[in-house]
């Protein structure tokens, strides 16, 4: 069984982002970029399925600028076997990415696609579900536990009320939640090995996909800042403030 794992290059989760002065977006120059954390969890899950003998090959794919190659090398250092870079400088929105991934899936014929549930830059939480719909496949989103057997995946999902388990026929799309696994760190020898693993490049044109954005960003602004409040010296002072000043106690 082949597993396809899409990975996105995003501003590192530790970076405090800055909104560009002209309101066009956020500053990305000289900012640390990393693999979207949910995609790391997706790579880890795929690699574990391979180590368990369930999967035979893990292919990673990333769409975007030249720098995505670094993200793909990182994924291969974590255990992916080979990589595909969909090279474009165009702005990519989730629907366009889902179409690119559908085209890649058409070429690769994976039995399973494991995506992160959301990218921590646009926070859209769409691509995996969109891909499943475009492929006409079933989906299991927000996975905290996955087991694969007999042509189906049994997936425990994190939902607002607790946990839900679904059984989805393969081929299928799974999206990862935080509790699915704890991704490993890439060892130095594996980082070296990853440099020699195969990496193909294609373009949206070659895949026959129109990636024209459907949403126009008119403005990006900073949210209103919260005023830092006061430190209180004691529990008694806190209760007095909550009662008399904030009036939130009943």
């Amino acid at each position: 069984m082949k597993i396809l794992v899409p990975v996105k290059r995003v501003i590192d989760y530790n970076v405090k982002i800055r909104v560009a002065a002209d309101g066009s977006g956020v500053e990305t120059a000289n900012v640390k970029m990393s693999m979207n954390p949910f995609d790391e969890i997706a790579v880890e899950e795929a690699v574990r399925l391979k180590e368990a003998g369930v999967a035979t090959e893990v292919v990673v794919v990333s769409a975007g600028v030249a720098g995505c190659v670094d993200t793909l090398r990182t994924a291969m250092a974590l255990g992916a076997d080979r990589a595909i870079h969909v090279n474009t400088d165009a702005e990519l929105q989730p629907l366009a990415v889902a179409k690119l991934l559908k085209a890649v899936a058409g070429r690769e014929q994976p039995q399973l696609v494991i995506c992160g549930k959301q990218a921590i830059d646009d926070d859209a939480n769409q691509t995996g579900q969109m891909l499943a719909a475009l492929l006409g496949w079933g989906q299991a989103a927000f996975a905290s536990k996955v087991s694969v057997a007999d042509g189906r995946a049994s997936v425990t999902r994190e939902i607002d009320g607790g946990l839900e388990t679904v059984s989805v026929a393969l081929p299928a799309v799974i999206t990862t939640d935080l509790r699915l696994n704890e991704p490993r760190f890439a060892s130095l020898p594996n980082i070296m090995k990853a440099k020699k693993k195969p990496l193909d490049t294609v373009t949206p044109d070659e895949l026959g996909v129109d990636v024209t954005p459907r949403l126009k960003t008119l403005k990006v602004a900073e949210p209103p800042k919260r005023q830092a409040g006061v430190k209180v010296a004691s529990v008694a002072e806190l209760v007095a403030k909550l009662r008399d000043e904030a009036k939130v106690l009943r």
Partner: protein
Amino acid sequence: MSILVIAEHDNAGLRPATLNTLAAAAKIGGDITVLVAGSGCAGAAAAAAAVPGVAKVLSADAAHLAHPTAEDLAAVTLAAAAGHSHVLAPAGSFGKNFMPRVAATLDVAQVSDIVEVVSADTFVRPIYAGNALATVQSADPVKVVTVRATAFDPVAATGGSAPVEALAAPAASLLSAFVSQELSTSARPELGNARVVVTGGRALGSAEAYASVLEPLADRLGAALGASRAAVDSGYAPNDAQVGQTGKIVAPDLYIAIGVSGAIQHLAGMKDSKVIVAINKDPEAAIFQVADYGLVGDLFELVPALVKELG
């Protein structure tokens, strides 16, 4: 304009986020139709029909929609969507699951998690864990939108009397099937719409301490219990208690963060609370930058003392 709102409900009635989503629909303006897809969902359909401003309720009542899969919810939504300019659902795990399937099938973009309606085609949504707000305009013929409940005051639940029409649900998809669920049961208010939230972080150190330290305070205040990711990952609290960028978004009247450092991913989920209290032993903790009232010290002493002081 004609807006289809997909109700989140428990068959007997509407979930609160549906009323917030209807408020966003009202801001867009136009005829509002509510789709209630479930099994034995007459109660929820009646509740939707009672919401003022709702023009029509479509009730898709079918056995296979008892615990609907994303595939089945998308299919019934698409069956109801014809002729509508907008399709809206709350942006919780319910809406996030199936709405992108609806958008992709219609070949339109989805606008996720909106916090403001600027006009019928323009919306504001948070990006980068709420550290930036993007104003986006959709050129697509149908706007598929999920709504952040805490950003819209709910519409009134009663006073209307819309007609309820039956909608035949498409046959069950065989792609995936519901197996089981484990819902967290608690007598406390629900995290998403509680008036007071008491949240514990990694500092609680164990599930036992999370319960024994926080529950008396939550009991006293009638609060819901929340948790940081670290507290959930460590098994102190269930996954559905996670507040933050990738968990639940809350905006209660009073939010008390206990032993939580205030990582941006956590702040993303609670910084719109009306009053924020932080208890942390580190005076430099980032949580104090958003707290209205900060108390520096050991939570294991301060929280029991607070319960006592509250009487």
